[in-house]
C-alpha cells in the first residue's frame, strides 16, 4: 500500500506498524519523533499503531542548527 513519508510517496507492506517501518528504515526509535496525519505518535505506541493507506508520515530527528 502507499503512504506519504517525509514528503515522498512510499510503498509499504499492508498492516505495517510504525515500529516495523522504523526498523525497515534503519532508524532507532529513541532518536526520532513520529507524526502521523498531524498527530504526534508517542514512542510507547510505535508497536501498536498500524499504518493505513494514504497516511502522511513525518519522521523527524535532531539535525544541525543554531
Amino acid at each position, binding site marked *: 500500500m502507499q503512504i506519504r*513519508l*517525509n*514528503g515522498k510517496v512510499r510503498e509499504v507492506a499492508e498492516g505495517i506498524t510504525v515500529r516495523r517501518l522504523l526498523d525497515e*528504515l*534503519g*532508524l532507532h526509535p*529513541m*532518536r*526520532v*519523533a*513520529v*507524526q502521523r496525519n498531524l498527530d*504526534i505518535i*508517542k*514512542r510507547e505506541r510505535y508497536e501498536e499503531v498500524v499504518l493505513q493507506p494514504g497516511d502522511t508520515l*513525518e*519522521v*523527524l*530527528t*535532531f*539535525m*544541525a*542548527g*543554531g
Partner: protein
Amino acid sequence: MRNGATLKFGGKEFHSRLIVGTGKYPDYHTMQKALEASGAELVTVAVRRVNLDRTQESLLDYIDLKRYTLLPNTAGCYTAEEAVKYSRLAREVGMSEMVKLEVIGDQRTLFPDNEELLRATRILVKEGFIVLPYTNDDPVMAKKLEDAGAAVVMPLGAPIGSGLGIRNPYNIMIILQLVQVPVIVDAGVGTASDAAIAMELGCDGVLMNTGIAGAKDPVMMAEAMRKAVEAGRQAYLAGRIPKKLYATASTTMEGMIE
C-alpha cells in the same frame, strides 16, 4: 548584580556561559572539535526530517550526549502554532524539556515576531516546557516574556549571522535591570570582543552559531569565544572603573625633582 557562580535555569545548572549552535560548519568533524574548544555544555539543534539515505552521516553521531545537553530550536517557524508543533516534536525526540523558541517575523532580518512569540511562550509554559525565547532588545517585551513564564530571555545582539555585535548595549542593560531571569544574548556575535562586551554588561550568557561556524578557523574561534566569555564575566564581577571625561593621573606628582 548577577553574581551567581553558575548559569542556572529550569532546574539545570551550567558552568559554561557559552551556548553554541551546531549549524553551518564545513563538516561534522570540525563541528565536534569546535564544540570541544568552546567548552560549551549546552548546544542547540534543529528539528527536521530524518535523512532516509542511510549512507549519510547523522549529527547525533558527532555529539556525545554524556557531555552535552541538547537545546532544540524552533528555527524556521513563523507562527505560534508552528513553533508549538515543533516544540512538541522536539520533546518527543527526547533528551530535552527545553526549547529555544524562535518565531520569526521577517525573512530578511530574521527578527522575531514578538506577538506570536509571546503567544507560543504562554502555550508552551502551560505544557511544562522550559522556554528560552529568542527576542529583540525591547525591555517591555523581555518583561512580558518573563511574566509569561519564560525561564530565560534571549535578546538579540544583532540579526542572526550578521556579525554586527551588540548593537544596543543600553537596552540590554535596561533588560538586565528589569528582569530577574537569566539574560542570554543570542544572535549577532561576530568576534571575541562582541561576546566579551555582552558579558561585561552583566549578561548571564551568550549564544552563538555563525560567529564560530563561519569563521575561517572555527576551532580557533571557538577557543577565542570561550576565553572572551570568561574574560568578560570576570571583568564584570571585578567591577570596572567608571568612565570619565577627563584624565586622572596614575602617577603621583610627589617626589618629583625641582
